[in-house]
């Protein structure tokens, strides 16, 4: 395996982790938006605060990790994507800024009126970002980012693959968030809230599953290169995703919330990895292969040092953070609070 492919896999690992953990944080916005009025929704919004508050900034850094590996390891394709997908990337960025800022502002709002305003911005922008990042991914995957950059500013992301990519991103984020929040609610003994979340998450899961599999039809015509491999080498992953998705729904139905989280992660991870396998060996589908996109070998080797440090330093620290937030001591303190 070439150095370029190894670096590309390391970058894709970042995409996967961002889609799962960053995605779950963004998905919380959907449940915040649909939580109801300030009195009825207060309990759920506090749960969301506790659930994503300690982790969202750390999960967000996966995006930075992806971007720096992309522009350092595969600089020309990065410039090609940013000059073609300026609009969806800028809109995703607006969502990122508004989401992060208003989430922090809401927590320390003085009045309910302020909290409502910041909360609405937080929830709305949480949906914008996954949609446009998904649309941008669809543009790359459907071969609409030309190697030399400055491609079609609108057509590159206003097409069936991109639109389904955006919808799938929003749906999978909400599905993950639902699975995590239901488990959090149950663990902190908010049983009534867990019931509400359980029903909504099952609904979101069914809708997202339908979108994911319905997307295979338009993608067939719209992105033949991607589709051939989706239905070829990536087919087992599609099957796994379907099975894991169904398992999640069954577990939620049976109220095994703790295991439902893992099944939901498996379902979404299979979809994302399926896209990665389908896109291989292209960096920009139909335009530039990974090997041809790679920058200087010395730099790729340097990036491997960064990846190794990430494995040694970041992953254990992140594991510690996740372990703490899931520990009884933290949950009990929340409950007491």
């Amino acid at each position, binding site marked *: 395996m070439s150095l370029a492919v190894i670096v590309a896999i390391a970058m894709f690992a970042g995409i996967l982790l961002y889609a799962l953990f960053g995605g779950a944080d963004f998905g919380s916005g959907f449940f915040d938006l649909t939580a109801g009025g300030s009195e009825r929704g207060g309990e759920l919004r506090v749960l969301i605060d506790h659930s994503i*508050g300690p982790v969202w900034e750390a999960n967000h*850094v996966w995006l930075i*990790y992806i971007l720096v590996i992309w522009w*350092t390891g595969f600089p020309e394709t990065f410039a090609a994507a*940013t000059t073609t997908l300026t609009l969806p990337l800028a809109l995703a960025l607006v969502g990122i*800024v508004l989401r992060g800022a208003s989430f*922090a502002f809401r927590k320390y709002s003085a009045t*309910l009126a302020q909290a409502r305003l910041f909360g609405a911005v937080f929830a709305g922008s949480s949906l914008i970002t996954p949609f446009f990042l998904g649309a941008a991914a669809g543009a790359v995957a459907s071969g609409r980012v030309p190697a030399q950059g400055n491609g079609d500013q609108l057509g590159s992301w206003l097409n069936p693959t991109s639109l389904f990519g955006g919808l799938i991103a929003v749906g999978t984020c909400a599905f993950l968030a639902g699975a995590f929040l239901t488990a959090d609610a149950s663990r902190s003994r908010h049983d009534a809230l867990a019931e509400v979340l359980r029903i909504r998450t099952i609904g979101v899961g069914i809708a997202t599953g339908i979108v994911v599999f319905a997307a295979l039809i338009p993608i067939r015509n719209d992105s033949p290169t991607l589709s051939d491999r989706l239905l070829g080498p990536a087919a087992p992953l599609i099957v796994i995703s379907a099975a894991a998705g169904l398992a999640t729904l069954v577990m939620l139905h049976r109220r095994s919330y703790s295991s439902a989280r893992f099944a939901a992660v498996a379902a979404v991870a299979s979809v994302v990895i399926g896209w990665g396998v389908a896109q291989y060996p292209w960096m920009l589908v139909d335009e530039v292969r990974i090997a041809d996109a790679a*920058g200087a070998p010395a730099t790729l080797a340097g990036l491997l040092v960064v990846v190794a440090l990430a494995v040694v330093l970041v992953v254990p*620290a992140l594991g510690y953070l996740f372990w703490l937030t899931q520990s009884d001591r933290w949950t009990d303190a929340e409950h007491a609070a």
Partner: protein
Amino acid sequence: MDFTGVVSQLMAASDAPPGLLPAREQMALSLGWHIILACFGVAFPTMIYVVHRRGIVRDDPVALGLAKRWAKISAVLFAIGAVSGTVLSFEMGILWPGLMGRFGDVLGLPFAFEGLSFFIEAIFLGIYLYGWDRMPARLHLAMLIPMAAAGVFGTFFVVSVNAWMNNPTGFRIVDGEVTDVNPWQAMFNDGVWLQFAHMWVAAFMVVGFVVSGVYAAGMLRGRVDAHHRLGFTVPFVFATVAALVQPLIGHVLGLRVGNTQPAKLAAFELATTTEQPAPLRLGGVLIDGKVYGAIDIPMIGSLIARNSFDKPVPGLDTIPVADQPPVNITHLAFQSMVGIGTLLAVAVVVFWLARWRGHDLLSKRWFLRGAVIAGPLAIIAMEAGWIATEVGRQPWIVWQVLRTSDAASQSAGLWWSLAAAVVVYVGMTIGATVVLRSMARRWRAGEEDLPTPYGPRSAPVDEAAGR
């Protein structure tokens, strides 16, 4: 013709790409905004550590109270710092595709290391913010150490990229192609250590003066108590050390500029012609090749810029017009930075000398007023420093290798992007101001925990407030 077309025609130079001017404006706005928060990310954890540790070790409730409040403040500041830093990541590609596409694999590695630093800071921030009363006290305190360390490393790596833009190395250009890339050599370029030291110390000046200024403002309004004295003193000590060290670092860095970037030095010093010895030219503007309104102090220019009473400062006349930076902005920004930095260094010396002689200046209203103003002044000095070095590097984005006009986006649509950025940053500034002020107000009113208004406990109160 549409709006963007008209604006581009009016504002851009004839041969420049339509994206150049909006790209530069947006970069200046977003970097200038983010850098203030980055300073807090770098310096604030260390200051919180000092008061938090004092609170635990000396069982000092005042210090512990400060640490709790500063932690909440940092939750807000670090959140908007994280997202505004992300903006810069996207902008590298959206605004400067000609730089990133061609040199991404030369300059990118420090960014990747900076990403790791950011990771560590974000992870331990999450643990620290939510760890109050949920972890053993000492362990909880220790969570600040990786945050503070990540701030140091992060500064080094980010500044490393900027230093490379001033001192490009680690590659060759053969027939227009970038080749022989050595990213480590690029990262550890000749300018990196001094530039890093300059920015790192600047971060402590900014945060030290801003935070101590907040407590000075409280004392001006009659809130003179142990809380305000400690809240003033800890950041002020950091600011003192930083303000005294900074002129030395700046001087050495300035000497380097004379050797490596003579055009920038000429603009700093408003040296239109080579003079030997060169005067120190205070203030003044260059109009049609003539200097107006400057005060010249003989020989001091050579002393400051070249460390000698008679070495010349090469003038702008030795540099082709096409390679000259915008002189007036560079000169005035540079001198604002130096002037404010000198003023702040004198001010801290006055404070500690008076204290040594037994006078407590914290009881003097004139000093407190000065301490309040020192915060914004430190920010202005840092911004002016960035303007001086960035504008002084023009017309190059990579010194004598790549012109800014060749790096900028071709898209005139960037005017819309700039307009959106202005709206978002104004909104974020207003939001942060409203929230931070309301936090301070509630603390003064005796609340400590600041519960969320939609939370179950606080609901009745807030419903009453909402009516």
